[in-house]
């Protein structure tokens, strides 16, 4: 009889604890720094028309957001890169789910230069050369005879991973790269550094000069504009994602549906990214 009592008491305690922490009405959003402004605008707009819903948005990077999703400390993860296989495996292990991926916007990864830098175009190969340390002087890409100061993001950033995987073809960044904690910090650094180059989302690049990106020397260069990205001409475009543990329900579903609606997609354009439709 004693064993039965222990089982019953354990069951009651576990169930009571579970119920006590269930039924949260607020939505937490965590992840990509590239998307943090966009996510904040979405939350503000949504809460205006849904005052009973509380949405908390924080950044930290796509990797941090995905870890939070796996650990169960966020409802939505913002990511500026697709989830890695190893991350899906962790989610699968804990929740028996591959996660639900939602494409929310498009972004062109911009290459930032200081406004005084005479260089205006770079090929994908030149960009790779600069960021892997093979090209170290602006002279080699048509600029002044001065050392290139390379700025990038830290490794928790989705942009860092996307840039390494797609532009550097999986190679390591140069050891001389200056890692910045956010895209705004990259923009600030390049703005002040005449020999600096940085990368990040288009929505941040208001105070610096954009580089026209060319696939190779024989193709024209394109600015990361809405027209070029929509037409598929700008070579470095990516989706901005939201990830959830499983199929959304209730308030979470309502919020996601709103983000994908015309109203939500209008916010995407206002912030400086590109709607998915």
């Amino acid at each position, binding site marked *: 009889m004693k064993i039965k009592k222990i089982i019953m008491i354990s069951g009651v305690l*576990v169930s009571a604890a579970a119920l006590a922490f*269930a039924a949260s009405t607020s939505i937490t959003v965590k992840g990509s720094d590239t998307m943090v402004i966009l996510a904040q605008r979405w939350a503000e707009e949504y809460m205006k028309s849904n005052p009973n819903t509380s949405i908390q948005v924080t950044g930290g990077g796509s990797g941090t957001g995905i870890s939070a999703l796996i650990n169960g400390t966020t409802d939505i993860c913002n990511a500026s890169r697709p989830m890695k296989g190893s991350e899906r495996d962790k989610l699968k292990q804990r929740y028996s*789910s591959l996660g*639900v991926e939602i494409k929310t916007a498009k972004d062109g990864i911009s290459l930032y230069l200081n406004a005084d830098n005479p260089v205006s175009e770079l090929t994908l190969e030149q960009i790779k050369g600069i960021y892997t340390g093979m090209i170290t002087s602006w002279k080699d890409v048509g600029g002044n005879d001065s050392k290139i100061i390379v700025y990038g993001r830290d490794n928790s950033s989705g942009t860092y991973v996307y840039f390494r995987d797609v532009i550097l073809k*999986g190679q390591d960044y140069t050891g001389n790269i200056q890692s910045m904690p956010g895209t705004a910090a990259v923009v600030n650094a390049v703005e002040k550094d005449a020999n600096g180059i940085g990368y990040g989302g288009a929505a941040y690049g208001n105070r610096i000069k954009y580089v026209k990106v060319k696939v190779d020397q024989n193709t024209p260069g394109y600015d990361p504009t809405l027209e070029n990205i929509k037409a598929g001409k700008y070579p470095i475009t990516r989706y901005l994602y939201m990830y959830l543990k499983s199929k959304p*329900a209730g308030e979470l579903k309502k919020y996601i549906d709103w983000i994908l609606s015309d109203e939500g997609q209008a916010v995407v354009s206002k912030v400086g990214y590109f709607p998915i439709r």
Partner: protein
Amino acid sequence: MKIKNLLIVALMIWSSAIAQNDSVAGNSISEAEKITQLEDKLKGLEESYLETKGDVNKLKKIKVSGYVQAQLRVATDTSGIGKGKYKIGKFQGGDLASDSRSVLQIRRGRIKVAYENSYSQMAVQLDCIPKGVSIKDAYMRFSAPWLYGFGIKAGVYDRPFGFEISYSSSSRESPERSRMFQTLFPGERDMGASIEYIPNDNLPSWAQLFNLKLGRFAGNGINDEFDDIRDWIGRFGLSIPLNSINMAIDAGFSGYAGAIRSLNDTLKEMSDTLWVSRLGKKNKEIDRQYFGGDMQIYYGNIPVLGGMSLRGEVIGGQQPGRASSNESPKSSAADASMIYVRNFIGFYTMAVLNIDPLKCQLVGKYDFFDPNIEIEKTGVKSLADASFKTLGLGLVYHWDENVKIMAYFDKITNEEIGIDPYKKDINDNVFTLRIQYKF
């Protein structure tokens, strides 16, 4: 950058104060000199910042993780305890003391330190419990992006066989592994080296469907090797993600081809349903061969609840055991007693249902192991030949990202064999209440 900005502001305030003092003293410094001074100081700070950043980046390569499991286990039986009739709980976390029907214990206290460079990794994992400290893992791994997912691993680590061995005890939804794994792979680890193909995300999607681990191991767990026989162990895996419906199917085929050396001239083998002696076996290699298949199905779109998984695994083969045990070698010294060769089969099937709104998981597991398929029931005269069925039911509650609580009941049914007290099913069921902290 924030720190840098703060430093600049601090320097400006400081220089302004100096300037005021200088002005009061009538010893004014020109603006150009002040700027030069500030620039020099800023350069010094930048150098110091870069140096610190370098140190921090080096430290980021060191990763420390660990977990502690504290638990209460209670046996349902009282009749046999204290009378030396039988032990309870060996496969549920260790035998209970003969005069006790419950135990409060630290089941596992793991701490893992890993150092990860771009192309290499090393890790050491210790198990620190009141009984003592022991090494669980000590390995290095080498890989590089241009190797397309191929890598080399060497040291002491999980044997690449099946699914449950490499499924961490901190993540597992049942307190212990299945009886067949505890018997065939005690301690899960072995010493050896292997080639691995674990596809990375840059490979084409078809190349990400496969994975492979194949290596040679000492065959003696984490203990010192006492012979020169090495065993081949490998698993070929398939991983099929069906992202559009949030479903995944993983499967694998495993093999173990090894041997142990007989130090006794006599070997026991089954002939029909009888043990027969084979002579002239001293210093001969006796085959140790297993074949296994495993499958895991995950589905993540159950309305309201979240996801669920179904897992199953089967292993069959030949095990060179001893008269009273069918366990694989796990000692630093060679055993000179007679080897008993048995053909065995074992399987388990398991279902885990997530209840995400309550942060819970419901668990059901059925585990069967027959260490000798050639004799059964009253023909079985040793516990080493008796089959066992274990039905486990549990509830796991994830308190937060670090803490989980598990309540789990194992109903164990033994084969009714020809020796007491196992002529009928003994009452050796065990309830486990566990709390785990993981970081």
